[in-house]
């Protein structure tokens, strides 16, 4: 242990602690800007670049960055001396001198860390006038970039490279011209970006933001010729409440359904329903492949990778074009829902495909790009018309003068609204695998599963592995979040799958969809993601039915429409195929 | 290729190469050394100045006397070629005429080592070349 004094307070902390953390332990909050950490998720960004967290350490010539300076025995630290405050203010003034003054229109206003900091320091004017950086605005289907606002905190770069290993973004140029950008300042859409949007989730300012589709949805609702159907993803219900001042981890399923109805959606359905459907298809596909491999069929590939996460799907299409037979061909729950809605349900209620608008509420930015994929369109009409994020839904609710807190609790509509606990846990890392095991086990062994809580598949480890005994047949499964973790497993599989995995779940975002880029900003507070996870498993535990194959509405639709999982009809509507989207060199 | 296998090896090597650099090393502190200027104009060369210079260089090496040898142009004593000027630290320069191997030996053994006079000194009535 190390003893030191911070602002005249004696503090004792473990060796190797930074001044920043020591101060926080002592209840002193030193402001930061570039610093970002997701505790327990191995995400750390501390380039020591912004210099906002500088403090005075007695006996040192220069001010020290609290985020990057380790404590030392007997250290005497001042976090708010005149020298520190002057330096900190000057540094923020410098940042503001190269930042547009358009807070009123900025999508990040109210959630912006720079704005908060400027307020905290009481900055009222900027003494420095000079050149401002200007860059081309750029947008993919999911992510908007306005680099004029970039403050070079490098969080996005760290996320894109270290955590996701996507490598779309890098710091480029140097000095005043330095900025984070794709290669050759090309549009992000032409880079290796997979639209996971985690760069947006960690951006402290409005430099990176989402493509806002609220107006499109409002327009569809206002159009009397359209039947607007909405589906809500599992992870939304455990996070939406935060936008309305509720405690993280609040479950707002019923209130959300009520709010959606009041917003004017004609049918309020649940993506959880199609998550159960996904388990039926994916589980059956898994058992089928295992059967084929056991029978010596060389064309069948194991392990099967989940394909629910669109960021992950783009990732392997771009990086592992030689391994496209590995992932499950099952569509994601969003797309399964869209396909069922625009075929089965439209037919059922007698609405033409073109007159139905399917809206999804997702914790995700990549879902926007997924919905726009050509293979998910019929004659140019997409199965899912608009994908909104949790944050957009919150804005929409606020825009319409509603307050989620005041909503009664209502149920989803039928028939695409009924779901099980297995579907709920899709929102957390390991959830899809657990749901699949619950079903696959019973289908494979024809026995009832006694304990359906697979604790080993839960929690925040980036990679989890387990062997499940399918009545004598050991099934090896792995769960990963963060695409760099996924990359390591893919490379391992390419090298012969030494650990003999049968099934692998991959989610791009930290902690799974609950940490998705479309969720309320967590500003680096990982306890928020933890609470969302706890809520997820709480919701599962409270459900009367917790296995997908026991969902009566799912049983009914197979009986009525699909016949059997992985059958002809389901292949037509519920399965997809993958494309080689890697970069190619062509000889001229 | 010869490898240096020890410090002794290296020192031996230095010894071996050192003579190559002698000319330069000496030039750095010529005031403290015996300087011998050999007149090497046409007449000097014709009467064997080159050979006498080489002989004296070997002699100096053999006697382990540090000598700076330089060539100069004609000193104006064409009648007495080969001529050399010898400057021993602390003494005035002397010019010797008709130098042959035997005379050279004498200059080294008697004049340079023991400051004994040797025949053949040409009276100092020449102009210093360096001016």
């Amino acid at each position, binding site marked *: 242990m190390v003893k030191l004094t911070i602002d005249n307070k004696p503090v004792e902390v473990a060796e190797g602690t930074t001044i920043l953390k020591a101060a926080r332990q002592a209840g002193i909050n030193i402001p930061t800007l570039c610093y970002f950490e997701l505790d327990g998720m191995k995400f750390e960004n501390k380039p020591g670049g912004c210099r906002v967290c500088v403090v005075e350490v007695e006996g040192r010539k220069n001010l020290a960055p609290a985020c990057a300076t380790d404590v030392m025995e007997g250290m005497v630290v001042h976090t708010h001396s005149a020298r520190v405050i002057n330096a900190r203010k000057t540094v923020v003034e410098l940042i503001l001198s190269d930042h547009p003054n358009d807070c009123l229109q900025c999508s990040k206003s109210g959630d912006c860390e720079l704005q908060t900091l400027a307020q905290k320091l009481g900055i009222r004017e900027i003494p420095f006038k000079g050149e401002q950086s200007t860059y081309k605005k750029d947008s993919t289907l999911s992510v908007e970039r306005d680099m004029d606002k970039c403050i070079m905190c490098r969080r996005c770069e760290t996320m894109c490279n270290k955590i996701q290993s996507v490598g779309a973004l*890098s710091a*480029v*140029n140097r000095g005043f011209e330095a900025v984070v950008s794709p290669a*050759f300042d090309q549009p992000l859409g*032409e880079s290796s970006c997979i639209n996971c949007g985690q760069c947006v989730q960690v951006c402290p300012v409005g430099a990176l933001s989402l493509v806002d589709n609220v107006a499109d949805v409002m327009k569809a609702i206002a159009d009397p010729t359209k039947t607007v159907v909405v589906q809500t993803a599992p992870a939304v219900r455990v996070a939406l409440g935060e936008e309305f001042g509720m405690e993280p981890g609040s479950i707002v399923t019923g209130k959300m359904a009520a709010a959606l109805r009041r917003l004017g959606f004609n049918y309020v359905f649940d993506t959880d329903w199609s998550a159960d459907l996904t388990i039926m298809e994916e589980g059956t596909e898994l058992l089928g492949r295992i059967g084929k491999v056991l029978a010596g069929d060389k064309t069948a590939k194991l392990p099967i990778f989940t394909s629910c996460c669109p960021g992950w799907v783009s990732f392997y299409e771009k990086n592992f074009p030689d391994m496209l037979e590995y992932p499950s061909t099952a569509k994601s729950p969003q797309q399964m829902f869209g396909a069922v809605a625009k075929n089965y349900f439209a037919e059922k209620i007698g609405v033409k495909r073109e007159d139905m608008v399917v809206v999804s509420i997702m914790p995700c930015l990549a879902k926007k790009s997924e919905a726009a994929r050509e293979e998910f369109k019929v004659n140019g009409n997409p199965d899912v018309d608009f994908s909104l994020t949790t944050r957009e839904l919150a804005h929409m609710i606020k825009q319409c003068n509603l307050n989620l807190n005041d909503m009664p609790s209502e149920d989803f509509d039928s028939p695409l609204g009924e779901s099980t606990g297995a579907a709920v846990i899709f929102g957390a890392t390991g959830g899809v695998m657990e749901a699949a095991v619950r079903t696959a086990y019973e289908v494979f062994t024809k026995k009832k599963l006694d304990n359906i809580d697979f604790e080993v598949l839960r929690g925040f480890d980036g990679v989890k592995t387990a062997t499940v005994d399918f009545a004598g047949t050991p099934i090896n499964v792995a769960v990963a979040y963060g695409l760099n973790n996924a990359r390591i497993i893919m490379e391992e599989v390419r090298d012969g799958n030494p650990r003999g995995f049968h099934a692998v779940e991959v989610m791009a975002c930290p902690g799974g969809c609950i940490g998705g880029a479309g969720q309320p900003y967590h500003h680096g507070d990982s306890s928020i993601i933890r609470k969302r996870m706890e809520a997820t498993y709480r919701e599962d535990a409270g459900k009367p039915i917790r296995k997908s194959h026991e969902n009566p509405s799912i049983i009914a639709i197979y009986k009525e429409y699909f016949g059997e999982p992985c059958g002809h009809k389901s292949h037509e509507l519920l399965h997809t195929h993958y494309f080689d989207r890697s970069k*190619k*060199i062509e000889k001229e | 290729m010869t490898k240096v296998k020890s410090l002794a090896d290296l020192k031996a090597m230095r010894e071996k190469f050192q003579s190559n650099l002698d000319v330069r090393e000496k030039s750095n502190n010529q005031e403290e050394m015996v300087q011998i200027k050999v007149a090497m104009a046409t007449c000097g060369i014709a009467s064997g100045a080159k050979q006498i210079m080489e002989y004296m260089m070997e002699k100096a090496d053999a006697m382990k006397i540090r000598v700076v040898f330089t060539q100069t142009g004609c000193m104006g004593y064409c009648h007495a070629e080969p001529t050399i000027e010898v400057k021993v630290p602390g003494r005035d320069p002397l010019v010797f005429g008709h130098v042959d191997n035997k005379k050279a030996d004498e200059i080294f053994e008697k004049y340079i080592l023991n400051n004994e006079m040797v025949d053949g000194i040409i009276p100092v009535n020449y102009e210093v070349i360096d001016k």
Partner: protein
Amino acid sequence: MATIKLSESKIKTIKDICKSFDNKSGEVINVLHQVQGAFGYLPAEVQEVVAMELNMPVAQVYGIVSFYSFFTMQPKGEHPISICLGTACYVRGAEKVLDEFKRQLNINVGETTKDGKFSLNCLRCVGACGLAPVVMVGDKVYGRLTPDNVKDIIAEYNS
């Protein structure tokens, strides 16, 4: 993602260079030095191939190329003119010489003349401060220059 087009021989050159460094991404700066040595500059397609060979994101390669002033994405003129703006040259009037080059060639720093003959660049100290101000045309060094000499230097390469 996009398709990159490049001639077969160029692809081979890049691949050979990368291979000589065992395709290690840590050697990217050495690789870029050699590739630029071979082509004179580092256009986007070339960087793409380097990135692919070294198995690293092209954004990072570009991040490096755009960081170091020695690397350029612009083809240089047949006779690249580099004006030393080191302190010694600066205080001895290098800026005036630079202005004269700009005027005579009608281009700015970093540009190449329309006929591709000359390009103009600044550099910091070639270490010939005794000759300040100094200009390099290709590998040839011109020292103790005044604006009056500029015309003659250009003429030397224009004939």
